[in-house]
C-alpha cells in the first residue's frame, strides 16, 4: 500500500522558468479550425487564453530546469557541492539516452558523488519526484535537487486541437533537505490499464519510428496529429480524474488524521480549468484555496504545473508564511498521487521566463 509518511524533511525552495514566447489562443484559432462560437465556449469552459512556449527549438527542458536551479543556488547562497542527488522528471529529455539528469550534474557543477537519473512521468511527476527525493533523504542524503518539467508544446502536433492549445513549456527546480520538523504524508497509485489514453505511440521499442510515424491522421472531431506525437483521449482522462482524485484526497486526509479545513492550499496539477473546477466543486473548496488560472496564462506545464502555480500565483504566501499544503497530480500512465507537506517561508520567487545565455 503506497501510503507513507516522513519526518523532519522539507522543501526549501521552488523556482520555475517558463517559455519566453506568449501565444494567444485568438492568434492560433485558425490552426485548430475553431469557429467563433466554439472558441468562445472553449475559452469559458476550458480556460483557453494563452500559453508560454520556448521560441528557440534547440532549448530543452533541462535548460529551463538548470536556469531554475541556478536561481536557487544564488537565492539561498548554496554551492553545487552541497547537492547529493539530482532527480529529473521529464518526458522530453535531451536525448533518448542517457538520462538528462547526468548531463545536468556536469553542467551544474555538481560533484561526482551525486546520484543522478531521470524519471519518465508527466502529470503525476511532481508528486512522484518529491516522494523519491524524500525517500532518498530518509535513507541518509542531506540535500536533493528535484527538477521537473517538459517542453510539452513540442510533443503535441501543431494542429491537434485537443492537446496543443493547452501545452506550455516550463521547467522547475525544487530543493529538498533534512530538517523542518514536521511530518509529511504521501499517497501514490498507478493503473497501466489506461496507458492508451495519453500516449506517444511511435518512437519507442514497441513501435519504432518509421515513415508511417509521420503520416497525418485526422480524427472524427477534426483534430490532426501523427503517431510520433502525443495523443490524448480527453473524455477518458476526464472520467478517470473525477473518479480517482476526490477519493484520493479523502484517503490521504484520513491517513494524515487531518481535514480539508487544515489545508491552506490545494495545489493541483493544472490540467485544464474544466477539470479543476469540477474537482473543486466535488471537494467543496473555493478557488482562493485551489488556484486554477495556470493553464489560461501559461498552459499545462505537465510535471512543472504544481511548482509553476506556486511561483506564478502564490509566491508571496509561500515566501512569507508557514503553510500546510496538499499537492496532487494525475494523468499520463495512468498515474496519480498526492501529498501533504508543511512549508516555512521558503524561497519561492515569481515565475521566470527563459533568457538564453551564451554557452561557454
Amino acid at each position, binding site marked *: 500500500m503506497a501510503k507513507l509518511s516522513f519526518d523532519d524533511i522539507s522543501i526549501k525552495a521552488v523556482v520555475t522558468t517558463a517559455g519566453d514566447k506568449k501565444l494567444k489562443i485568438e492568434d492560433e484559432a485558425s490552426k485548430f479550425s475553431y469557429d467563433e462560437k*466554439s472558441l468562445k*465556449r*472553449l475559452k469559458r*469552459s*476550458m480556460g483557453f487564453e494563452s500559453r508560454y512556449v520556448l521560441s528557440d527549438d534547440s532549448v530543452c527542458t533541462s535548460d529551463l530546469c538548470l536556469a531554475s536551479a541556478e536561481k536557487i543556488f544564488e537565492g539561498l547562497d548554496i554551492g553545487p557541492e552541497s547537492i547529493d542527488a539530482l532527480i529529473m522528471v521529464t518526458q522530453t529529455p535531451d536525448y533518448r539516452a542517457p538520462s538528462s539528469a547526468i548531463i545536468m550534474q556536469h553542467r551544474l557543477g555538481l560533484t561526482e558523488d551525486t546520484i543522478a537519473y531521470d524519471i519518465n512521468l508527466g502529470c503525476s511527476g511532481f508528486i512522484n519526484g518529491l516522494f523519491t527525493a524524500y525517500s532518498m533523504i530518509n535513507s541518509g542524503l542531506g540535500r536533493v535537487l528535484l527538477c521537473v518539467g517538459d517542453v510539452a508544446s513540442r510533443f503535441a502536433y501543431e494542429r491537434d486541437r*485537443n492537446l496543443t492549445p493547452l501545452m506550455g513549456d516550463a521547467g522547475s527546480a525544487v530543493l529538498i533537505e533534512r530538517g523542518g520538523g514536521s511530518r509529511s504524508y504521501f499517497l501514490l497509485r498507478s493503473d497501466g490499464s489506461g496507458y492508451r489514453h495519453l500516449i506517444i505511440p511511435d518512437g519507442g521499442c514497441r513501435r519504432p519510428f518509421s515513415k508511417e510515424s509521420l503520416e497525418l491522421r485526422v480524427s472524427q*472531431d477534426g483534430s490532426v496529429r501523427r503517431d510520433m506525437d502525443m495523443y490524448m*483521449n*480527453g*473524455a*477518458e482522462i*476526464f*472520467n478517470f480524474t*473525477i*473518479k480517482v482524485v476526490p477519493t484520493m484526497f479523502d484517503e490521504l486526509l484520513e491517513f494524515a488524521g487531518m481535514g480539508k479545513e487544515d489545508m491552506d492550499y490545494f495545489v493541483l496539477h493544472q490540467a485544464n480549468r*474544466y477539470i479543476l473546477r*469540477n474537482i473543486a466543486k466535488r471537494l467543496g473548496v473555493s478557488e482562493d484555496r485551489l488556484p486554477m488560472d495556470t493553464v489560461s496564462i501559461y498552459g499545462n506545464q505537465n510535471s512543472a504545473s504544481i511548482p509553476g502555480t506556486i511561483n506564478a500565483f502564490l509566491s508571496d504566501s509561500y515566501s512569507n508564511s508557514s503553510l500546510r499544503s496538499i499537492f496532487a497530480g494525475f494523468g499520463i500512465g495512468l498515474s496519480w498521487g498526492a501529498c501533504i507537506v508543511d512549508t516555512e517561508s521558503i524561497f519561492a520567487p515569481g515565475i521566470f521566463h527563459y533568457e538564453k545565455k551564451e554557452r561557454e
Partner: protein
Amino acid sequence: MKLQEFLEELQDVIDTEMELEPSTPLEDIEEYDSIAVLSLMSFFDELGVDISAGEFEKFERVSDIIERVGDVVDG
C-alpha cells in the same frame, strides 16, 4: 427522478436553450459537443452510474441517455 425533471437537468448539464424530448436527436443539439460529453460524464458519476467515454459515441437520441441511467428516471 421524474422524466420531466431529468430532461430539465439534462438541458442544464448540456448547457443548451433547446427543450429536450426523449426523441430529440443528439446531433440536433448545437451545444452537444466534446465539452457537453465531459459534463454528462460528470453528471453520470454524480448519479452513481458507471460509464466509459466510448459509450457516448453510440448515443443517438436523448432516449439513449435516459435508458443508460436506468432506475434514476422513474416515470
